[in-house]
């Protein structure tokens, strides 16, 4: 099982993602955003950073990078497609996930560990987790404020597409535990099939105890298990 980790101009978390995947025994390789053939890969990760400088809107230009045709193909084929932070924004712009990420409510760049609660385990990000499990993962974003129209929000809630919500260390989801104004405290969502998912905080920065938390490892183990499952 080999995972493609996409590098757009301005991506800056690609090596951390490769490291995190290799640390759990997965093979991972960097691919450039101009690559047009991902047929040798079993899954793909769009890592964090500032793809194409975040010009116009975050992810707006990246979604037209040549590699995205392959990302869409893999998503349609049921392969695991994971977006982290800026990758989340790209997947939303590409229409692979609903909604949009706006500037944080308080217009501050947030860079600190936060807690998220696992809402369910039917996604490529959470299948190795427990429902209700609280994970400590660093948030590192200025545009992490998840927003959608009322109709979209109702639909993704009804369809259980919300996989992670910001919470306090005890797992309580409330306004006080919402770092950036995201509607419904949403920190991670998936598509109806569960093979495309994205998360705003950075699991790759919490994959070893020496980093202060190894909770992010559970998300990569989930992703790895999903690669196996999608290959059956």
């Amino acid at each position, binding site marked *: 099982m080999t995972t493609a980790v996409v590098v757009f101009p301005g991506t800056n978390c690609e090596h951390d993602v490769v490291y995190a995947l290799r640390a759990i025994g997965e093979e991972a390789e960097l691919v450039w955003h101009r690559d047009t053939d991902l047929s040798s890969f079993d899954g793909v990760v769009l890592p964090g950073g500032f793809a194409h400088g975040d010009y116009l809107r975050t992810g707006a230009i990246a979604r037209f990078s040549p590699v995205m045709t392959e990302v869409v193909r893999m998503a349609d084929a049921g392969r695991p497609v994971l977006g982290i932070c800026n990758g989340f924004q790209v997947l939303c712009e590409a229409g692979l996930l609903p909604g949009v990420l706006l500037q944080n409510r308080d*217009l501050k760049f947030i860079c600190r560990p936060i807690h998220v609660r696992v809402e369910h385990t039917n996604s490529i990000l959470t299948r190795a987790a427990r429902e209700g499990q609280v994970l400590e993962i660093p948030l590192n974003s200025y545009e992490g*404020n998840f*927003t959608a129209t009322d109709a979209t929000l109702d639909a993704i809630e009804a369809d259980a597409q919300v996989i992670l919500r910001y919470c306090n260390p005890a797992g309580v989801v409330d306004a006080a535990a919402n770092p950036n104004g995201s509607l419904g405290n949403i920190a991670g969502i998936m598509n109806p099939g569960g093979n495309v998912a994205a998360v705003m905080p950075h699991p790759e920065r919490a994959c070893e105890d020496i980093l202060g938390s190894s909770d992010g490892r559970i998300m990569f183990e989930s992703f790895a298990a999903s690669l196996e499952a999608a290959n059956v």
Partner: protein
Amino acid sequence: MEVTVTVRRRPNIADPAGAAVSKALRDLGYDAVEKVRIDRTITLTIDGADPVAVEERVREMCERLLANPVMEDYHIEVGP
């Protein structure tokens, strides 16, 4: 031909930057300020003679790239 595109966030979509500017203006004593929304203006210079065709082309650009249909509306003005 010059074309001006104004991209606006829908009224029901939050504009944290607009809210911050609104607060700053009130702090400066402009109490009459009720609301501030920050729009984006994009000016394009396009090779073309037919304003209708140019506008149609720019509309396509708006739908595909310049605006995000999830949260923004756009207004096109084909210049002199």
